[in-house]
């Protein structure tokens, strides 16, 4: 008894959910309410469930010229997602919906078809639609403005035969050749020998035909709505001190963190926009060292950035916008991280982004060594730091042997630009005040990129103790200081 009382209510709920978005059709739906779940599925539905996919194609009359069609199509995709989760864009002006999964929810295929068409009509869009078991067939029918509803893959070939070839969307050159051959309809093309066609038009055309006839699977990219966190907070009074801004920011960051947590996602960039009266707004861009959704880290970075900010004018409102959401990886969750040593409690990404937030993006970097003979080109700054905890895999001893064997040790400090030393004309040639201890090591390289060097490097000791890395340019015979052993 109880189950009976529940079933119609559930059916109502689903009908309401289905029509909720299509509010205009709600009255019609309640008028012809069908107990979709109470009744056993009719035979037709059982047969339909065997055919794997059913594609609904909608081809729109040229979308308005003012807006780019991609953006308009994306909005239509979002709209179409009320009918099925599998919505795919077909540039420039068509959508493909996989609707087999939604038929039971809407009662019947005809009603679903009508519901989707009604949705376009309510948007005042002129659209041609068709339903077929393959993507291209549905698309071709819709393009040739034939409103058909084909469920059986077996009858596709005969139904497609009448379509003009122009609906395939093939390039004009190919269509011209086909017209010259006297082929203007799909049926006439299908009658031609396959091997000859493949030789003449290439495998791409054959693939199109196979997909249209349902002989070949054609996976499509499903439209996924891009999400961002975006929230504005208008102040009751103008705020002119950063401390108050920070206070106002707290709930905003908390909501952003919740938004991210609900989606199991993180961000790597945030933007804070401040609006002023009669002044262009202030934009603060924040980068995070790794993807995160933690409130503490987001607050940390925002606080450090804001503390560097000097408000040009009182702020009227602020808006927090997140960068694109990115899935959290297991490494960025800190549940299984080992307990840290006394004090602290920071992780390396947190530390780096706190430093970058206050000192600037450029001020914090790593170094890497490049196998190059020229000292200037043998190292590089690294901005993308690998911050995940690494374990030493190779014992340090064996790594030492892997390093390129230099004849001479290299100095710890390298000067940005070699400094010219005053060299008195003495024999043997030697810079003033220096004793050459080791050398020469000839470095002659780089003729291919215009920064070629030809130098003899020496290790020299300055009277008093400092050890220097000097070189004599081979052409000019001038002495330069290039590094300091510290």
């Amino acid at each position, binding site marked *: 008894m109880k189950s009976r009382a529940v079933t119609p209510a559930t059916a109502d709920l689903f009908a309401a959910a289905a029509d909720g978005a299509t509010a205009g059709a709600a009255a019609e739906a309640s008028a012809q309410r069908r107990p979709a779940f109470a009744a056993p599925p009719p035979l037709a539905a059982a047969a339909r469930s065997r055919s794997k996919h059913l594609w609904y194609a909608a081809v729109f009359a040229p979308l308005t010229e003012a807006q780019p069609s991609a953006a308009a199509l994306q909005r239509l995709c979002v709209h179409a997602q009320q009918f099925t989760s599998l919505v795919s864009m077909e540039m420039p002006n068509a959508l493909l919906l996989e609707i087999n999964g939604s038929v039971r929810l809407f009662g019947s295929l005809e009603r679903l078809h009508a519901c989707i068409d009604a949705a376009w009509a309510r948007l005042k869009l002129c659209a041609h639609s068709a339903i077929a078991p393959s993507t291209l067939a549905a698309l071709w029918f819709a393009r040739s403005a034939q409103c058909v509803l084909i469920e059986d893959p077996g009858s596709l070939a005969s139904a497609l035969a009448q379509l003009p070839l122009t609906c395939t969307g093939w390039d004009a050159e190919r269509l011209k050749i086909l017209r010259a051959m006297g082929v203007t309809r799909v049926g006439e093309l299908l009658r031609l020998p396959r091997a000859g066609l493949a030789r003449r038009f290439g495998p791409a055309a054959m693939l199109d035909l196979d997909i249209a006839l349902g002989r070949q699977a054609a996976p499509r990219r499903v439209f996924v709505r891009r999400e961002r966190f975006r929230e504005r907070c208008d102040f009751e009074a103008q705020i002119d001190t950063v401390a108050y801004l920070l206070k106002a920011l707290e709930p905003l960051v908390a909501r952003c963190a919740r938004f991210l947590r609900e989606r199991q996602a993180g961000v790597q960039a945030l933007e804070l926009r401040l609006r002023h009266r009669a002044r262009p707004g202030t934009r603060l861009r924040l980068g995070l060292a790794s993807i995160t959704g933690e409130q503490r880290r987001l607050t940390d970075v925002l606080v450090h950035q804001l503390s560097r900010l000097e408000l040009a004018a009182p702020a009227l409102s602020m808006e927090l916008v997140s960068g694109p959401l990115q899935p959290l990886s297991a490494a960025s969750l800190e549940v299984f991280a080992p307990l*840290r040593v*006394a*004090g602290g409690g*920071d992780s390396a990404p947190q530390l780096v982004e*706190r430093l970058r937030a206050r000192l600037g993006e450029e001020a*914090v970097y*790593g170094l890497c060594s490049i196998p190059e003979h020229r000292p200037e080109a043998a190292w590089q700054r690294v901005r993308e730091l690998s911050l995940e905890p690494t374990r030493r895999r190779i014992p340090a001893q064996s790594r030492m042997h892997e390093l390129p064997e230099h004849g001479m040790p290299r100095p710890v400090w390298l000067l940005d630009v070699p400094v010219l030393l005053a060299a008195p004309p003495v024999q043997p040639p030697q810079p003033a005040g220096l004793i050459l201890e080791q050398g020469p090591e000839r470095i002659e390289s780089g003729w291919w990129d215009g920064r070629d060097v030809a130098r003899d490097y020496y290790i020299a000791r300055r009277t*008093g103790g400092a050890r220097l890395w000097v070189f004599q340019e081979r052409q000019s015979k001038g002495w330069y200081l290039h590094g*300091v052993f*510290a």
Partner: protein
Amino acid sequence: MADARVWKLKDAAAGLRPPPRPVWSTGRSALDARLPGGGWPTASLVEVLLGAAGLGEIQLFLPALTQCQRRADGEVPWLVWIAPPHEPFAPALAQQGIELARLLVVRPASATEALWAAEQTLSSGVCAAVLLWLKGTDDRWLRRLKLAAQAGGALGVLFRPEQHRFESSPAALRLLLTAGDEEPHLELLKVQGGRPGPVECAL
């Protein structure tokens, strides 16, 4: 309560010495012998006063830097160099055995920001050693750095010009490195738990 910083009274009654802090060898036996514990102390601040750059001041600490990266079980800790006077030459550091992927160079715009960065990195607990170059700083900031080093268990090394040698400093260890007649000259100005004086060792 197995914390090296806590020394329990009952241990004292039992005649136990406080557990020694880990130290990193300086790579020079003459210097190791003069330092309490036999090497550079961890979780404290070392101050080096330099007569000039290039007297082998990095060589003093390189063995310790490579050791602490190598000896740590599991995760390789970070080394941070803040406001170095020149660009650290990556091939040389790799040659000496430093893990370059775990080296961070920070170039702050001002001395205050450098001190702030040093405090943050020292107390973070992910850095094994922080090397900081400064022209001059006040006593209060040095005390903060020392506390940060103790909290994070890191070795903090502060390089300053020689002219600050007569200022008071909370550092546990103060060294003076000056150019000698032939070899650079190293002198311990202050050693907590040791004896100050010149050290004869090749740099």
